[in-house]
């Protein structure tokens, strides 16, 4: 083979190898997942790989031949890059790549110097590595760090504010506490110096407070009585009288058997102005009210008022009334009989005018005698001399007797009067017939007096296992609401009835109440002005045995 042909073949082989190398290089740079470009010693881009195009969006046409700093936001640093590489410095820095669309992409660039065999600098390779994700992560981290820092600052601020707020609250609390203490002291001073005796029981009926006045009344000290239960308090002789008044007898009886003596089983009952005789020269008036908080009973307050002086005055007054009544009754009786003689014509016939005058005088005298009798009854009641003669009897005949006595009056007044007799036989009651008759009489008389013509008065009876109840219902003028509390007090007469009826002593209901209660009964009423009133009284049912026991 001629030499030139051999050379030609050799050359062709070399060219093919070169082309293979070129292909290999192209494929390699295409595969390379890093943006790489080749830069001249003066910093001009002369070749790029595929990933470079993807990263920058520039193709060869657009970027080759342009200065390397074109790629970066930091132009000066881009220019310095070439200088630094050429000067042999190891270059690796973070820059912001500006792609074709003008978007900023955080990158790290690292450069590698190219030299030929003679150590001549040919330029350098520049690898550009996207650090968007890393940067994003870093930015996110910084953002979160800032957020957290701010959150912490806010929290610290809030805590400081809270601290300030808490201090204010504490100050307020302290102030409130002081005020409360002050109020407590004031209250204690009031309680201590209160003219009345005061006792406070807690929710378990333990004595929690007793003021000095109460200490004096019962001859005890707060030290020895406070925090003590009912069974313990009852052991103090003077205090036992009060305790017996404050608790139900039934409670006491029930708890006697209770070995545990559970004080919670004793409950202070509500009472209003009950008299308590401690000794001859000490009469107390006891009222007890429950202490409520949110409708829940948290204890009881007992107020003790010294009524010794009032009682003395009352006794003197009663004695005076009694004396006066007695003194008046004798001449009134004499007048009565004198008038009777005149009316009977024993001293000669009277003309009609004379008779009319004498009859009116007689009636007035009768009312006077009734008043005197009532006053004497009241005096006896108050002196405790209102003697009872209880007998076991049926109540129905007593009622019937009174009803019959009012037949004419009812007819005259044209009142629809009804006595609804019970169908069954009523149990017996232990009563003082005369006194109970007086009670029934008071009720019926009031009903007739204060019911206008054409009105209705109904009397009925009912009973259960414990008591018999008499009900007197009228359609009369009724009792004004604001005066109902005083109905059973002495000399009470409602304003509306005083306008209608000038007669009436105002003592009937007071006497009735005392009579009923003396029979261990109950008395009460319901009334509505202009509609009518219903009075009730209930008497306990008794057996023959009860009568036997009472006899002793």
């Amino acid at each position, binding site marked *: 083979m001629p030499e030139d042909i051999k050379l030609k073949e050799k050359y062709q082989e070399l060219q093919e190898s070169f082309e293979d190398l070129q292909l290999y290089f192209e494929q390699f740079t295409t595969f390379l997942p890093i943006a790489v470009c*080749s830069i001249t010693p003066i910093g001009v881009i*002369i*070749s790029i790989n595929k990933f470079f195009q993807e990263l920058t969006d520039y193709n060869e046409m657009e970027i080759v*031949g342009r200065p390397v700093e074109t790629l970066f936001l930091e132009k000066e640093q881009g220019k310095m890059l070439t200088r630094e590489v050429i000067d042999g410095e190891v270059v690796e820095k973070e820059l912001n790549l500006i792609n074709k669309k003008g978007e900023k992409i955080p990158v790290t660039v690292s450069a590698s110097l190219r030299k030929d065999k003679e150590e*001549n600098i040919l330029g350098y390779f520049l690898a550009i590595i996207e650090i968007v994700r890393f940067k994003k992560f870093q930015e996110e981290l910084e953002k979160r760090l800032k957020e957290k820092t701010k959150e912490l600052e806010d929290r610290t601020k809030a805590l400081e504010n809270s601290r300030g707020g808490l201090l204010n609250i504490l100050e307020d609390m302290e102030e409130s506490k002081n005020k409360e203490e002050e109020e407590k002291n004031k209250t204690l001073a009031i309680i201590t110096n209160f003219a009345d005796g005061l006792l406070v029981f807690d929710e378990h009926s333990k004595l929690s407070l007793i003021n000095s006045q109460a200490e004096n009344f019962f001859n005890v000290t707060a030290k020895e009585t406070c925090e003590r239960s009912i069974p313990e308090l009852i052991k103090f002789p003077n205090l036992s009288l009060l305790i017996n008044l404050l608790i139900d007898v039934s409670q006491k009886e029930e708890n006697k058997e209770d070995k545990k003596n559970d004080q919670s089983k004793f409950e202070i009952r509500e009472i209003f102005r009950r008299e308590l005789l401690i000794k001859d020269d000490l009469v107390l008036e006891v009222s007890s009210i429950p202490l409520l908080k949110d409708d829940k009973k948290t204890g009881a307050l007992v107020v003790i008022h010294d009524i010794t002086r009032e009682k003395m005055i009352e006794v003197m007054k009663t004695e005076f009334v009694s004396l006066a009544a007695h003194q008046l009754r004798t001449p009134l009786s004499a007048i009565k009989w004198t008038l009777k003689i005149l009316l009977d014509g024993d001293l000669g016939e009277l003309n009609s005018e004379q008779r009319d005058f004498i009859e009116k005088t007689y009636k007035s005298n009768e009312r006077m005698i009734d008043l005197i009798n009532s006053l004497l009854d009241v005096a006896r009641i108050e002196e405790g001399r209102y003697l009872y003669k209880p007998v076991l009897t049926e109540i129905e005949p007593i009622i019937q007797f009174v009803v019959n006595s009012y037949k004419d009056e009812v007819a005259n007044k044209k009142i629809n009067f009804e006595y609804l007799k019970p169908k069954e036989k009523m149990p017996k009651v232990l009563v003082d017939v005369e006194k109970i008759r007086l009670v029934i009489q008071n009720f019926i008389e009031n009903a007739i007096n204060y019911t206008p013509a054409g009105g209705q008065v109904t009397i009925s009876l009912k009973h259960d296992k414990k008591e018999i109840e008499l009900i007197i219902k009228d359609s009369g003028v009724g009792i004004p609401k604001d005066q109902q509390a005083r109905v059973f007090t002495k000399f009470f007469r409602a304003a509306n009835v005083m306008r209608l009826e000038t007669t009436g002593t105002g003592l009937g209901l007071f006497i009735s109440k005392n009579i009923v209660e003396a029979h261990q009964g109950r008395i009460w009423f319901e009334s509505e002005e202009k509609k009518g009133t219903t009075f009730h009284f209930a008497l306990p049912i008794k057996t023959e045995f009860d009568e036997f026991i009472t006899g002793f």
Partner: protein
Amino acid sequence: MSENISLKQEADRLLKIPGNVKGVVFQTHYKYILYRTGEEGVKTVEAKLEELGHPLKFKEIKSWLWYSEGLDVLIFLILKDIFNWDDSDIFDMGTSAPKYSFIVGTLLKTFISPKKFFEETPKYWEKHYSFGQMEALEINEDQKYATVRIKDYNFHPISCIYFKGYFTRIGQFIIKTNNFQVEEKKCVHRGDTYHEFLLTWE
């Protein structure tokens, strides 16, 4: 039709002129046409070449093989003809050529300095062209100019535009400047005996 006839005549004329160029030059043309017109554009150019009786498949071209320079110049004329390109497109094609050339990367050692490159330029011509010669006449870095001559090259004036573009890009590789100018001072198509290009920069 008359243009086609004249292009055909011009093609035949160009192809008759002796002188070859390395396949690598056609490869850079292919990349540029592909970039500007896509695969369809490339096929259109190939179809035109075939129509003119000078078929060529760009992908089959070997970088080290010789091909007719007439064919090289004909491609410029076809591009102007079918895509209505003007001289500025051909200039841009010239400036783009060094960007695609693998060879340029390998020639980096010649880019160490303008003087070095200037000295190496005639060898570069010899490697790629089987005819004519390039002469690096003068370089003055202080005055910032250089003169290059191409002798015995006489195909078509359009080649001069391509060369101007090519020299401009190469110059930008070597000298960092925003203003690198190439002016053809002498041209065989204007009655001169050679082409002379004056390269200036600031």
